[in-house]
């Protein structure tokens, strides 16, 4: 089997997703891809995590989330406060306009496959393992 024995040690990814099942699965996908993952359940939670974890290199966030900030606003906030962090956006709704995706950001439609997630991760920040 492919991952149980692997100790992820690649770049740190913050997964932001309000739906627990999808979040759990996304975290697993990141680890299977050789990245380390931590999680946040909404944008405000994500900002708190980012304030204490300067080692986060990639934020993988859903666009539609409850709370005052959706994924697009979170992305804009990250661009402003933590410019070096790479952003991957995902959504089950309409694909956002190119202008809504921050510079260098990547969009992955839901439901996403392991391959799509890995392509997106490699595009923004190659893992040491990959």
């Amino acid at each position, binding site marked *: *089997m*492919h991952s*149980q024995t692997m100790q992820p040690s690649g770049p740190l990814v913050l997964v932001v997703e309000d*739906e627990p*099942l*999808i979040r*759990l*699965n996304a975290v*697993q996908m990141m680890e299977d891809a050789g990245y380390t993952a931590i999680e946040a359940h909404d944008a405000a939670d994500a900002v708190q995590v980012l304030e204490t974890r300067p080692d986060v290199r990639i934020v993988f966030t859903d666009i*539609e989330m409850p709370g005052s900030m959706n994924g697009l606003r979170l992305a804009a906030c990250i661009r402003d406060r933590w410019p070096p962090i790479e952003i991957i956006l995902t*959504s*089950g*709704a*309409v694909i956002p306009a190119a202008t809504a995706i921050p510079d260098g950001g990547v969009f992955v*439609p*839901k*439901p*996403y*496959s*392991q*391959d799509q997630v890995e392509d997106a991760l490699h595009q923004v920040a190659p893992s040491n393992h990959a």
Partner: protein
Amino acid sequence: MPDHIDQWDWAETPLGPKDTWSPALRTTYDIIMGTGFAACATWGDDQTLIYNAAYIPFLGARHPAALGQPIHEVWSDVWHEIAPLIERAKAGERVFLENLRLEMTRNGYPEETYWTFSYSALREDGRVMGILDIATDTTAAVLAERNQALLVQEATHRVKNTLSMVQAIAKQSLRGLADRATVKTFDERLQAFASAHDILFRRDWAVADLQEILSGALDKIIGPDRYSIHGPATTISARVAQTASLLAHELATNALKYGALTASEGTVDLTWTKNQEALVMVWRESGGPPATVPMRRGFGSKLIEAGLTGTGGAALRYEETGLTAEFTAPIATLLER
């Protein structure tokens, strides 16, 4: 209110007392007061405004002061927008505007309203005397349509979120039990199924175009350069869009794994023709190894055998030149829900 307008004393206006009016003006007046649509007219040198009770919401607080006033004074705030339309109507053009957005204060607060209306010239002895405006408030219909679009968007979003959750459950349940290739196959089938929803969403979930659905599925797996697609425009229902999308996905996956697309020169031609009774779609692989009957009949084979509409009509030929699959679907089934 109609009584009120009917009892209005026109003597104080440039039109003079009603019993002195010309037959043309009298007829215009009767038409306006008789119709259930919001209607108004202008008449004479001052373009004096006449309107019925249904037109009052249009005016809001301007009523009743507007009755018998020159139209350019009544609509002074939007006159620059209306004047060109009135001029066109007076020049003999039938001016017809649908669902024009107007912000109005008719209940004490600004309101978004929509109106469909028509301006036409009124004549007396061949001379243009004014214009007739017949209108209907379409606010409710416009807002309902917008609401419907939002609902479709929300439904699509929910379907795809639900599919994401199904994917998460399946993947976590299969963890340690299935190999990566099996999970990948599942992922891709689920995505082919989900991608049909993107196209359906753009068409309000009612119908889709066959070619759009098929190439949407094929592009994801084999890329646009390695297949050709050709056939007459064909509308399919949402249900058929889903089975067609899965069918294209399975055919493409097989071609890539075992068929023509294992060879660098291999290609696929997908064509269909229609007659009164049926649509016949042909998937023809060429340039690859000879096709062989699969050793085991898995879920993928069953999906292919289910055909375009999920009810059969598939004929597979394993030939020297590659796989040829013919799918026949009665025309009537293409739009079945």
